[in-house]
């Protein structure tokens, strides 16, 4: 025994310290996990009752609000319960907020209004606003989302500041939040936008805009001269999706834009809006442009809006002359769609050497 202890003391080196450290931290990790699990289980069991109370109270308020006269006492009682619970701990207040927002998202009319009133009356917005001061960007975003979902127009000023926040995702969420907070001018956030528009933001903005009433949808053509090309593209697309026919003139001008992405988007929008007055310009663009992508889109657009009789001979010539497979493919696809009998004839005569190509279009699910 004695010898062992002397060996230990004499040779306690770097390596032994390492081993000790690793073994110790391993033990700490496993203990930590077990302890954490115990604690959270205990917490969960303790929170079961207040959570159920909150659920019931919110259900009562949401479900019975439309018949508020009939159930006045029950609703009042539920509100009192909520008040008591929220004062007990910030965790419970957060639970109320989460639950309330879930319901508010899905409900309309009086129920939604009453839920908002609960959010205001119980000062739950203070909890949300406190998150804006937090250093963690995820928490800040959560706060912004909560305030926007509950339509806290009073707090717009404290949210607008985040348009210049250092974290990119916070800026994004702020812009999206402002759409529902300022319905008079929902795209105000895009005005000074410098970040490139990501697909995710496009998705979020479109989903928010869809929820606005038709008269609140902004005129997108106001943004066609934006400095940020991704914003221009998006707004052209949006104008087409919301069928804003008065934007056609501006779009027609934009098809000659030197940025191919904008040019493509404008042609695509004209196709969606079926703007036949622009046909001649698109034909002009088709001859001028060098981008294959734009050319393909022009052909598809002309197929929709152009004058068949005038275009058919032109296209027929083009098929023979053209060397790019993508363009040829689109041209032949257009012929198939124009006229069934004509298409058959064409495929027999013109495409003998390219029969495989034709079959590919017949089997293409998009055509059928």
């Amino acid at each position: 025994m004695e010898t062992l202890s002397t060996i230990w003391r004499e040779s306690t080196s770097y390596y032994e310290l390492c081993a000790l450290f690793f073994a110790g931290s391993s033990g700490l990790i496993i203990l930590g996990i077990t302890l954490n699990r115990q604690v959270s289980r205990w917490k969960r069991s303790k929170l079961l009752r207040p959570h159920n109370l909150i659920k019931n109270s919110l259900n009562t308020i949401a479900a019975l609000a439309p018949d508020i006269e009939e159930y006045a006492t029950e609703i009042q009682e539920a509100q009192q319960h909520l008040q008591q619970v929220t004062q007990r701990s910030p965790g419970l207040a957060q639970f109320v907020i989460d639950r309330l927002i879930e319901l508010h998202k899905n409900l309309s009319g009086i129920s939604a209004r009453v839920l908002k009133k609960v959010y205001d009356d119980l000062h739950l917005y203070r909890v949300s606003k406190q998150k804006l001061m937090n250093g963690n960007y995820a928490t800040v975003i959560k706060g912004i989302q909560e305030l926007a979902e509950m339509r806290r127009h009073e707090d717009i000023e404290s949210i607008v500041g985040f348009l210049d926040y250092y974290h990119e995702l916070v800026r994004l969420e702020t812009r999206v939040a402002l759409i529902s907070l300022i319905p008079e001018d929902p795209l105000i956030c895009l005005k000074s936008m410098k970040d490139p528009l990501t697909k995710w933001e496009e998705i979020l903005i479109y989903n928010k805009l869809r929820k606005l009433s038709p008269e609140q949808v902004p005129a997108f053509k106001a943004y066609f001269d934006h400095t940020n090309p991704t914003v221009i593209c998006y707004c052209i697309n949006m104008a087409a999706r919301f069928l804003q026919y008065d934007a056609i003139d501006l779009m027609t001008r934009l098809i000659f834009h030197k940025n191919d992405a904008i040019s493509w988007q404008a042609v695509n929008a004209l196709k969606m809006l079926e703007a036949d007055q622009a046909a001649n310009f698109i034909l002009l663009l088709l001859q001028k442009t060098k981008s294959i992508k734009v050319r393909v889109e022009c052909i598809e657009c002309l197929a929709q809006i152009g004058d068949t009789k005038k275009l058919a001979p032109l296209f027929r010539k083009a098929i023979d002359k053209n060397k790019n497979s993508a363009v040829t493919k689109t041209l032949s696809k257009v012929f198939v769609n124009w006229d069934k009998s004509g298409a058959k004839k064409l495929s027999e005569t013109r495409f003998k050497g390219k029969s495989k190509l034709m079959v590919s279009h017949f089997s293409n699910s998009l055509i059928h």
Partner: protein
Amino acid sequence: MKKILVCDDDEALISMIRFKLSKENYGEVVKVADGREAMHELIYHDFDMIITDIHMPYFSGLELVTFVREKLGDKTPIIVLSVEGIENTVTEAFQLGADDFISKPFSPNELSMRVKRLLSA
């Protein structure tokens, strides 16, 4: 006693729907959180009405409608819940055999009216 199945992955919403329908005494309300649980319930129990969301994990609301109409071959009334602005999904749901449709956000009373109408029909 009528039995109603409510499926949506939003727990807060289905719990509210259950509360509302029980309050109006429509009968027993069973809530499930996803398409798989819903199918399980449908195989082993009979329901007088089904209320389902479109977007759910495992099986979508549309698949559930097809399942009820084709596989089980019964005519249980089905109400489909969906977010606004997806018109083609709604028409698809009707084609597959849904009886009614409510777009979120909705008012609890609207839901209970529609349930009442379909249950009494």
